[in-house]
């Protein structure tokens, strides 16, 4: 028996799954700022279906980190960077960092050490309880970063996040931002973790607790306290996994739309798997190294407000003022337009008509073409108002669809602009061209057919979509990723995520490095007690022949290996 909890921006869902079947689910409002109230309510809603002793795993997808950042419930921390020569990254960071000397070059050679004088001054510079550190090329040689972590701990910091441990990928600004936000949310996350444990214990639940990460994998709650930043942006991850668990994703190149009340999330899929974001997730407006699905949002949802701006032009979204007028709201919405067109059936149809026709009267003079205006001259009869309202409703839907298709074009453009390093990729380009549309969420049934028509794509709307996120959380597999970099000329092996930087003379070929990487993944999985993971597999191999001193042939080999995100079982 699995318990899944999804704390979303609007709703908190709980779901109980037994033998691949949903036996109970409960949806209630997310409570801010204290998320625990909503979680307890959701738990209460499914409590009678839970047999505590049978529950083997509890997985939580939570916006706690996102929420803490948005609500500014964060702890100020000291950020230390070791940038060496190159671009000044300070303008790209959320805070003014403390800059230290020292430099590691692109091959991982120590070009300049840390300065003892600067290290001695650390306790004087300390302003906050926690710190974050990031050094350029620490993924090639983490020693400067690690030395600084040691010194900072000695200087009395409670915890220190290090960029290269959070990500093994090249990108100093992104790792720096990850490390900073990791420290900033750490105490909030730890408080939350304790509260969750206590709440679960009150229901007699003692099964291991997992937290969903932005990459769609889960890891034990205890472990995540060291890297809470990885739980930022999990809402889309849960929704993406839910779609996988509900077996709604075809193998072709597919566009998935999660059409909610305020926004539509767009994800791109291939071979039944979602594409990952280039570089990492955005945290607030800062690009981080947190691995996540490539999900982009546009401000169109069922409750997007329909208004006229001061120039009299029609606006659909991105604002949401309140519920649709059909549900007692005060401002007409996209949902009201869909009701007027007979595409959505809920609430009070007359109220939807009333709201939209009011707007139609103000709209007709300002934006219709002269020929259309003349058709309505001599006063507006009831039928004319009706046809005008219908015209407006159609226009509202057209605008909304355009925003979504534009957002989709941007997402596809970004995917097709991924870096290319080899001739073969240009000669035989890998172009993402969608062949199928899948839509979930409350607005999918009424709006998605218009999007499908505009894109000329077949559409599928899976059943069970409303609880997809909680399902996704419940069945998420465990994941982790490591990067193994071998320089055969130096005989140095680096695994930044594991803090490994050692002499290694025995390895020469990429296949050997791949085998070693899988071994590291396995060891780390055992160390973390992961039992629900896929077999480790190789994500990427780069193997470039290099020459030292004009003739001796060596190789630089970089292998990325991971426990792949996915679902442990399909759900009905």
């Amino acid at each position, binding site marked *: 028996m699995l318990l899944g909890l999804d704390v979303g921006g609007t709703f908190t869902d709980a779901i109980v799954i037994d033998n691949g079947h949903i036996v109970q689910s409960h949806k209630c409002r997310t409570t801010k700022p204290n998320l625990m109230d909503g979680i307890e309510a959701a738990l209460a809603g499914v409590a009678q279906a839970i047999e505590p002793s049978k529950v083997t795993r509890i997985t939580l997808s939570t916006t706690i980190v996102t929420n803490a950042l948005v609500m500014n419930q964060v702890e100020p921390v000291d950020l230390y960077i070791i*940038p060496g*020569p*190159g*671009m*000044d*990254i*300070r*303008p*790209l*960071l*959320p*805070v*003014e960092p403390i800059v230290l000397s020292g*430099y590691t*070059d*692109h*091959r991982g*050679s120590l*070009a*300049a050490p840390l300065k003892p004088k600067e290290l001695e001054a650390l306790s004087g510079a300390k302003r906050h309880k926690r710190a974050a550190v990031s050094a*350029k*090329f620490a*993924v*090639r040689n983490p020693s400067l970063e690690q030395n600084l972590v040691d010194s900072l701990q000695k200087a009395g910091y409670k915890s220190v996040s290090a960029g290269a441990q959070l990500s093994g990928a*090249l*990108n*100093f*600004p*992104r790792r720096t931002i990850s490390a900073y936000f990791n420290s900033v949310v750490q105490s909030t996350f730890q408080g939350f973790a304790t509260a969750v444990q206590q709440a679960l214990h009150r229901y007699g639940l003692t099964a291991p607790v997992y937290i969903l990460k932005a990459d769609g994998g889960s890891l034990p709650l205890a472990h995540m306290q060291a890297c809470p930043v990885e739980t930022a942006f999990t809402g889309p991850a849960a929704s993406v996994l839910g779609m996988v668990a509900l077996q709604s994703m075809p193998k072709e190149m597919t566009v998935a739309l999660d059409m909610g009340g305020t926004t539509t999330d767009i994800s791109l899929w291939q071979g039944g798997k979602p594409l990952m974001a*280039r*570089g990492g997730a955005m945290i607030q407006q800062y*690009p981080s190294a947190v691995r996540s699905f490539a999900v982009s949002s546009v401000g169109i949802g069922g409750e997007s407000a329909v208004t006229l701006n001061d120039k009299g032009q029609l606006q659909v979204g991105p604002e949401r003022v309140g519920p649709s007028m059909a549900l007692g709201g005060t401002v007409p919405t996209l949902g009201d337009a869909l009701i007027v067109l007979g595409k959505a059936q809920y609430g009070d149809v007359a109220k939807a008509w009333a709201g939209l026709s009011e707007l139609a009267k103000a709209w007709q003079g300002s934006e219709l073409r002269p020929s259309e205006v003349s058709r309505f001259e001599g006063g507006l009869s009831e039928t004319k108002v009706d046809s005008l309202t219908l015209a407006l409703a159609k226009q509202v839907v057209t605008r909304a669809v355009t925003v979504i298709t534009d957002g989709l074009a941007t997402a596809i453009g970004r995917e097709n*602009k991924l*870096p*290319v*390093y*080899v*001739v*073969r990729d*240009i*000669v035989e380009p890998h172009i993402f061209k969608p062949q199928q549309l899948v839509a979930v969420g409350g607005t999918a049934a009424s709006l998605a057919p218009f999007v499908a028509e505009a894109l000329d794509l077949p559409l599928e709307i899976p059943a069970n979509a409303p609880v997809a996120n909680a399902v996704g959380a419940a069945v998420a597999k465990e994941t982790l990723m490591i990067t193994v970099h071998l320089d055969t000329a130096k005989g140095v092996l680096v695994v930044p995520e594991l803090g490994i930087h050692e002499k290694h003379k025995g390895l020469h070929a990429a296949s050997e490095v791949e085998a070693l990487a899988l071994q590291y993944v396995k060891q780390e999985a055992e160390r973390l007690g992961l039992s629900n993971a896929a077999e480790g597999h190789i994500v990427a191999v*780069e193997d*470039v*022949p*290099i*020459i030292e001193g*004009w*003739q001796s*042939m060596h190789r*630089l080999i970089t292998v990325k290996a991971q426990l792949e995100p996915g679902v442990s079982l399909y759900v009905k």
Partner: protein
Amino acid sequence: MLNKNKPTEANLGLVFFPAFDWKISATHPERQERLLYTRDQLLEEGLLEHPAIREYNPLLASWQDIKRVHVGAPSLEKWVTEAHRVSVGGAIAAAEAVMRGEVKRAFSLVRPPGHHAMTMVHGIRGFCTVNVEAIMIAYLRRHYGVQRVAIVDTDVHHGDGSQDVFYHDPDTLFISFHQDGRTLYPGTGFMYEYGGPQAVGSTVNIPLPPGTGDEGMLTVLQELVLPMLADFKPDIIINSAGQDNHFSDPLANMMVTAKGYAKLTDLLQADIAVLEGGYSVQEALPYVNTGIVLSMAGLDYSQVVEPAFDEYSNRQRGDVSQRIEGIIKQWQQQWQRRHEMQVDALLGLGDYWHDQRQIYYDETGISEYRQETIRLYPDKVGWHSIDSRSDRGPFGSQHVFATFIPWQADETVRRDAYEATWQAKKEGKAQRYVVVDPMKDIQEEL
């Protein structure tokens, strides 16, 4: 918050293509590894996703694009690989980004290079097979109506291929400063090579002594190159951005630093830069490219310093500075006299000008023997033909006669060019007779 100065629009379009699957040979300087460390540095700096920079993918250049400039022996298809077409396509993608107004300027950081490739292609010369910038310029003239073009070649080697392509075009100013040809490949690029009889002063070679550093290079730029550009008034400035003037380059003897290159880039304000040579792949390229990218993107490059840099050992010697001052003075005088020299050059020449030369293809180990003819008109730019032979190449003896119609041509010039080619065919000495008309997308066999 420190984000006050965050640029909102992209200043620089960047095409980055390291061709990790292409090499001349396993130990050749032009091998897979060449841009590996540059890639690592750019990725680690986060430059490819900086808001001031927009990344573009290279295209696969069409044969039509390449055939506006080059004629191959026995054919272009025998010599030009897909990697070359992608390298050219990178420059075209960069140019497109600028011409469409999406970015202020663009840098095509691609390999293989091209500035030693001449119009006739009998093989590989100085690591180059086709001339990337020349093909890009022909593309700009054909598709965007660009007319006056200036190329500033900042590679340490003389850009003899670019010089060859544009030697008779008065509307393309080709400026190359490089280590003196008496001390370095390809052994050309002297002051007296200043353009053909109808294009005097449109080629500017500035041979610099070994040991030239930032100081010398920047003085040449400020006192010579920038005033020349101001006089010429180009529609567009192209930088053939070789990086082998660097103090650590294994193939040359200059002392320029990464920051020196960044300053040069800043002063030059080229619209499009295209990578050429530079073979200090670890100690120079990552830093020089970071410097150029920052500079073109309008970002601070003052912190770009190579770990190997030592201020004392990198100081330009006094005698080197003196020699550079001398060259600048000489060129300033020659530049002032260029209009008189143009008049003198045409005096008594009649309708035709002939020349003979031999061109060595170091990579392929063959020699090309050329007889060149230019048709001179009193009031317009004439065609030129190349009767080109080579032997001992992998495809046996080659003899191609090619006529190049200038991009400025009118119908008279076109008719005359075809007539001359038919005439040559009647004599029947060559295996192939080819006419190239770049503005009509024509390269045809007669």
